[in-house]
């Protein structure tokens, strides 16, 4: 039996029952479409988040206070107040951390802001002037702090777009106005642009104040919730992490790294974590979509069994003129594999088209920075899986066909 001829015969037989063939592969089409969309959109979502993390700068390192409790009795000593002013000073010394380019202490917490009779629950971020560069967000109205305002604990604030909407009427003058937070009066010097709710890091609903002001007048604390450090070059991140750990352990009199009262997180770690999570999620969704392939496969098996019964006489005849069991098996197997592969190809085209459409809608109408990714991996996966479904679910009907006795098959009415 020649392969080219066999394929032609199989295609012809499938075309003879065009409608039935189409309905049969619908299950496969839907399954592959779903897998394509999950993989393409999953990759898109991952890229979106990773890009946002990357936009903070790959040279950034975050220091977070505290440590994981080692047991129940240890749960009280998580050292959330371990990062102090002295740490910032020591980290800034060239002799301690030579590759440190800049450092930004962060203090944050929930607050209630009021203006006249308007009340709005929001978050205060106490930062310094590196804030705008590190997070790549600049006031659309007004200005940033001056260094002098930071060092002198000035009562100035840059407000997020949502805070502005909550506390001000449309068209009202905002700059220079005063709002109250925990009995402190803060003067508005800037308004941040609206970045949209889908942003991974959002300052839309936030009050940005000098960290000194936040520490003394708003929260009344002497420690920091976080330190953000930028290195001079990306290549020096690993070395800088070690320098930071050495300096902080020195300051905190820690000899055993197990007892660190701080964590050092790099951008790469955060990205790794996000990638791991989104990959797992994509895989899980694809696996759910794959269930429809099993359902589709059973449909293929069913219709192939019908086809084998219908064509019993043809099988008998082919055997009478010299077909071996193997060539009958291959003929029917080819039909089911071609059937599912065609379903796979349609599914790939449909899935890619729909993913592209959704990407377009997300980027054009929802305003996300969403890029369409053509999932080449998913294409091969889709082709492979659909072919395999044809093979697995086609083998039983094809065997039934191959095992028929030619005489009984010829007698079949």
């Amino acid at each position, binding site marked *: 039996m020649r392969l080219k*001829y066999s394929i032609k015969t199989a295609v012809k037989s499938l075309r003879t029952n065009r409608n039935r063939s189409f309905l049969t592969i619908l299950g496969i089409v839907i399954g592959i479409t779903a897998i394509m969309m999950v993989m393409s959109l999953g990759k898109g979502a991952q890229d979106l988040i990773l890009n946002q993390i990357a936009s903070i700068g790959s040279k950034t390192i975050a220091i977070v206070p505290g440590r994981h409790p080692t047991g129940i009795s240890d749960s009280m000593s998580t050292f959330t107040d371990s990062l102090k002013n002295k740490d910032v000073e020591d980290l800034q010394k060239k002799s301690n951390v030579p590759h440190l380019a800049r450092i930004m202490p962060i203090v944050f917490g929930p607050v209630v802001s009021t203006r006249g009779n308007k009340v709005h629950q929001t978050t205060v971020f106490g930062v310094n002037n590196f804030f705008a560069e590190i997070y790549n967000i600049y006031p659309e109205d007004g200005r940033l702090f001056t260094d002098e305002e930071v060092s002198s604990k000035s009562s100035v604030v840059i407000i997020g777009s949502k805070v502005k909407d909550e506390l001000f009427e449309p068209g009202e003058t905002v700059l220079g106005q005063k709002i109250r937070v925990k009995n402190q009066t803060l003067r508005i010097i800037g308004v941040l642009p609206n970045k949209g709710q889908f942003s991974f890091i959002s300052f839309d609903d936030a009050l940005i104040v000098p960290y000194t002001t936040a520490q003394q007048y708003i929260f009344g604390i002497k420690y920091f919730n976080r330190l953000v450090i930028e290195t001079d070059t990306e290549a020096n991140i690993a070395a800088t992490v070690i320098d930071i750990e050495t300096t902080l352990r020195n300051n905190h009199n820690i000899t055993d790294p197990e007892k660190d009262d701080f964590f050092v997180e790099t951008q790469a770690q955060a990205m790794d974590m996000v990638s791991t999570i989104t990959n797992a999620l994509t895989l899980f969704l694809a696996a759910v979509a794959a269930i429809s392939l099993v359902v589709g496969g059973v449909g293929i098996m069913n219709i192939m069994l019908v086809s084998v019964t219908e064509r019993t006489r043809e099988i008998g005849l082919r055997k009478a003129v010299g077909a071996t069991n193997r060539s009958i098996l291959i003929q029917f197997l080819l039909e089911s594999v071609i059937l599912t592969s065609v379903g796979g190809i349609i599914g790939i085209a449909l899935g890619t088209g729909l993913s592209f459409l959704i990407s377009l809608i997300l980027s054009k109408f929802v305003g996300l920075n969403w890029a369409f990714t053509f999932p080449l991996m998913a294409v091969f996966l889709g082709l492979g899986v659909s072919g395999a479904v044809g093979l697995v679910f086609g083998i039983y009907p094809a065997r039934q066909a191959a095992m028929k006795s030619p005489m009984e098959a010829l007698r079949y009415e």
Partner: protein
Amino acid sequence: MALIEIKKLSKIYGEGDNETRALLNTDLVIERGDFVAVMGPSGSGKSTLLHILGFLDDYSFGQYLFDGKEVGKYLPDEVARLRNQKFGFVFQAFNLLPRTSVLENVKMPLVYSDVPEREWDNLARRAIEAVGLTHRAEHEPSQLSGGEKQRAAIARALVNNPEVIFADEPTGNLDSKSGKAVMDIIWRLNTEQKKTVILITHETYTAEHARRIIRLLDGEVESDQLVSNRRGEGDFEK
């Protein structure tokens, strides 16, 4: 050495009370180039005999030597190969593939042969020409008359140039004019091309084209006689 030789051949279906003896201790020798008609009432075992001789069915007891070799000793793929190269089958119900042209139907045995694909068309067209259907080569079976269908089926049986033609009531579904055309072709295959023909029929005037008539009754050979005044080409009067 005889082409076909069966010794004490039996075919039994079912078990116990349902046991059916389709063939019982049958002995038969068919030489190369012979033309044998097998007759008998329905249920006499003539179809079973033809199926066993044509390797389409197996037998329960006894011996079947084809070309001197015990058939039970052939491997399944060798059996398929012999069916492909040595045998041509013509059935009462034609068994042409629907929605498939005469040309493609006739090609089918070539698909399972060693003949290179580029020669298929040529061989199939020659076989179609031999049965006088050249003008119908591109037609589908549904567009053909009964006689034309059977001629197409004969072309399919001939395309691999087989040694033996098995014809199972080839004229059974045909009017007498078409039956005559079909019998003429079969007659010429035997006399001109020296092909062995084994023909099942229940019409005496069809059987009399053969050199020899074997009558079966209840699975046993009732008589085996040479035809004294054999009918020639074109003689299909009842």
